[in-house]
């Protein structure tokens, strides 16, 4: 039956554009990734390791260079061949600077140079040793060489199993691409719409107006038959500004961790969230399963504060707790609750909720000069499989969000980043342990859970990657 092969997905936000270079933006990625455009590699959700996609194999030929073999006889949706030239074009388009490219953020300030070796082989050279290049390549969407190189587009042409047919202010639609190189998907047509109210999205799936919606609020996930929870790659935390008294005192920072009623707080985010002890989720290279999160021990927290006070730490100084509106569901309430708990512990915490643009000033360096002691609400999303996307920005003294300045720690981090294999994993774990117990520059809260409502017609389950992609090819119809 024709009709039943069409599905409708309802997203929380309208994608502002469909530029394939912006697939790390959730609502762009959920539409384009794996559907319209594909990358050279994909990250395996369980191991965090890169798997072949448009690239079939890769090897490091020297410190700076990787050689990639491409999948043969792949065609773009406009009929052009996917070859080394096309890939080189895509890499150039992304890194060339003629275009503001969101995905570039994953590369930091690296520069890449791709040179075709033959039709299906190319060399990628970086300006510094890059042990995890194949992981990074998972964010390089390969687009048709006919795509303008200096202008963002809204009608991307890739190699994926679906071809974009329309994009307007109300819907995105895509049809199955018959020339796809891989297995033919069951779904023939997909329509994306968007509603920002979680309860409306849930209602749409319930009434059959839509078939699937990622990320509904926990209070709307009431039907165990259709609502699936999945550990997404997000970790929530509070960043402690270590440079300002009284937060520069370790006892206070520990007390901050201990003062929270973690079990109670958990109720805000649902029974399935996982208490976090570090800033990356399980499955990311470097995650230390054995690292224990802080327990809740308000009595001890109060004691620590009293000790610090006795030692002359100005614990009465006002600590500004900076929250961000709408950062994650119930984020505001969590801040209110935590502020109350810290006040109970004897700290002078004052809550300010800010709009993103204002909040960002506190998140990123350079921090506002006039700030006092601050605690900053934040959320970190590492879905790229490697702790290299986390550790340097938070813990290295040059890190963009870091308040730590410890040269010894910097050196440790640098060594870990240059390492590869087992050693890399071990080093990362050590760093997380140190951050958790000795530095305490942050208060990891929870590894968050996403809830997805999947209509009864579909046979599909969300996983950790759902926040960045919803591959239609994986969705099957029930009977």
């Amino acid at each position, binding site marked *: 039956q024709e009709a039943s092969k069409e599905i409708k997905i309802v997203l929380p936000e309208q994608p502002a554009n469909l530029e394939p270079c912006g697939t790390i933006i959730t609502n762009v990625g959920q539409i384009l990734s794996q559907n319209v455009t594909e990358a050279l590699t994909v990250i395996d959700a369980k191991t965090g390791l890169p798997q072949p996609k448009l690239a079939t194999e890769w090897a490091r030929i020297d410190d700076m260079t990787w050689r990639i073999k491409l999948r043969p006889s792949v065609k773009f949706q406009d009929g052009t061949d996917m070859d080394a030239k096309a890939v080189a074009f895509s890499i150039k388009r992304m890194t060339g600077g003629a275009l503001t490219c969101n995905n570039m953020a994953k590369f930091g300030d690296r520069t890449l140079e791709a040179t075709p070796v033959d039709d299906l082989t190319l060399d990628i050279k970086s300006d510094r040793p890059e042990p995890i290049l194949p992981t990074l390549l998972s964010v390089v969407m390969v687009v048709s060489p006919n795509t303008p190189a200096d202008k963002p587009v809204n009608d991307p042409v890739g190699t994926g199993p679906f071809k974009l047919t329309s994009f307007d202010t109300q819907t995105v639609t895509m049809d199955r691409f018959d020339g796809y190189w891989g297995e033919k998907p069951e779904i023939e047509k997909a329509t994306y719409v968007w509603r920002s109210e979680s309860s409306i999205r849930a209602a749409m799936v319930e009434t059959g107006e839509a078939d699937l919606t990622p990320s509904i609020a926990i209070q709307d996930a009431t039907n165990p038959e259709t609502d699936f929870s999945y550990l997404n790659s997000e970790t929530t935390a509070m960043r402690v500004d270590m440079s300002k008294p009284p937060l520069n005192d370790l006892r206070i920072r520990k007390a901050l961790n201990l003062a929270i009623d973690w079990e109670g707080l958990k*109720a805000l985010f649902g029974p399935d969230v996982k208490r976090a002890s570090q800033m990356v989720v399980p499955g990311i290279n470097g995650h230390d399963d054995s690292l224990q999160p802080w327990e809740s021990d308000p009595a001890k927290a109060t004691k620590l504060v009293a000790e610090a006070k006795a030692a002359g730490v100005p614990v009465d100084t006002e600590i500004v707790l900076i929250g961000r509106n709408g950062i994650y*569901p119930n984020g505001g309430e969590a801040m209110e609750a935590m*502020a109350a708990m810290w006040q109970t512990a004897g700290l002078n915490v004052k809550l300010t909720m800010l709009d993103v643009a204002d909040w960002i000033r506190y998140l990123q360096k350079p921090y506002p000069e006039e700030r006092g002691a601050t605690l900053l609400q934040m959320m970190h999303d590492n879905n790229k499989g490697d702790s290299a996307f986390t550790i340097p920005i938070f813990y290295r003294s040059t890190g963009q969000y870091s308040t730590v300045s410890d040269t010894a720690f910097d050196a440790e981090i640098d060594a870990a980043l240059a390492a590869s294999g087992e050693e890399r994993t071990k080093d990362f774990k050590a760093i997380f342990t140190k951050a958790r117990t000795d530095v305490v520059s942050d208060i990891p809260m929870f590894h968050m859970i996403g809830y997805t409502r999947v209509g009864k017609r579909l046979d599909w389950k969300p996983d950790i990657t759902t926040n960045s992609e919803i591959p239609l090819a994986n969705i099957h119809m029930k009977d």
Partner: protein
Amino acid sequence: MTAIISETSVSASHGNARVVFNCLKRDKLAFAAAIFLVILAIATLAGPPLIGDMAAKLGLRQRNLPPFSFNHGWLFFLGADTLGRPILARLIVGAQNTLGIALAAVVCSMLIGGVLGLIAGYSERWYSQVIQRVADIIMSFPSLLLALIVLYTLGPSISNLIIVLALTRTPIYLRTTRAEVLELRERMFVSAAKSMGAKPLRIVVRHIAPMVLPTLLTIAAIDFATVILAESSLSFLGLGIQPPEFTWGAMVANGRGYLANAWWISFWPGLAILLTTLSLNLLSSWARTMADPQQRWRLQSLRKASR
């Protein structure tokens, strides 16, 4: 002689209060509204010291506690909110900020809008045009943007909140006033006052403003709700009132995500807003009748002759 006059005037003013009260009693709905507002005022003033910090005390284990049970104490009779705090207590404590902000914003915008509207309507000078075009500009200026700008330049605070709310609501009063003035100033009694030598200020204040005021009061009474709700949507941007302070509007907004599961979180504050607005409206409509000599009989005893 003077003694007699002063004595009679004293008893007259005493009598006036009685007359007004009697008139109020004759309009059942307005009377109920007045009683509600009095209770609200008492609760607002006397409630917070009594309730203390019960309203702010977390109870994460009784999140979203359903209403109508005394198991957790009477404060929980209306249920608990998303952080397990008693809604009833929060309603009482939140009233102060809510009513304060709304009252200040509505009164400011009504006064400013009304005065400017009188000027814009009565005067034919250049500034009348300027006032109107500025009002047009404010009307076209997205209130959210205004809020953001104030937030960025002045920082969030209750007084800035009131400024933003008052500013965005001013044009409606201004334009309504002006429209009525345009018609009123052509009336004969205005000409008559002019011919007696009344200065424009006097004409506007004594003759025109009292005729415009009832309409403004009608709008203001409804605006009360508008302002409370607008304040709650601003709190999404961080311009609203900052936790741990809260208002009814913020409470409503807080329950927004829970309408399907825990309706009571936003229902009670919503109801409080509704009842307050309703009461104000009933009173304003009563006052309107009272102020109009041609309608006042509706509130009078109307003793008929025996037949």
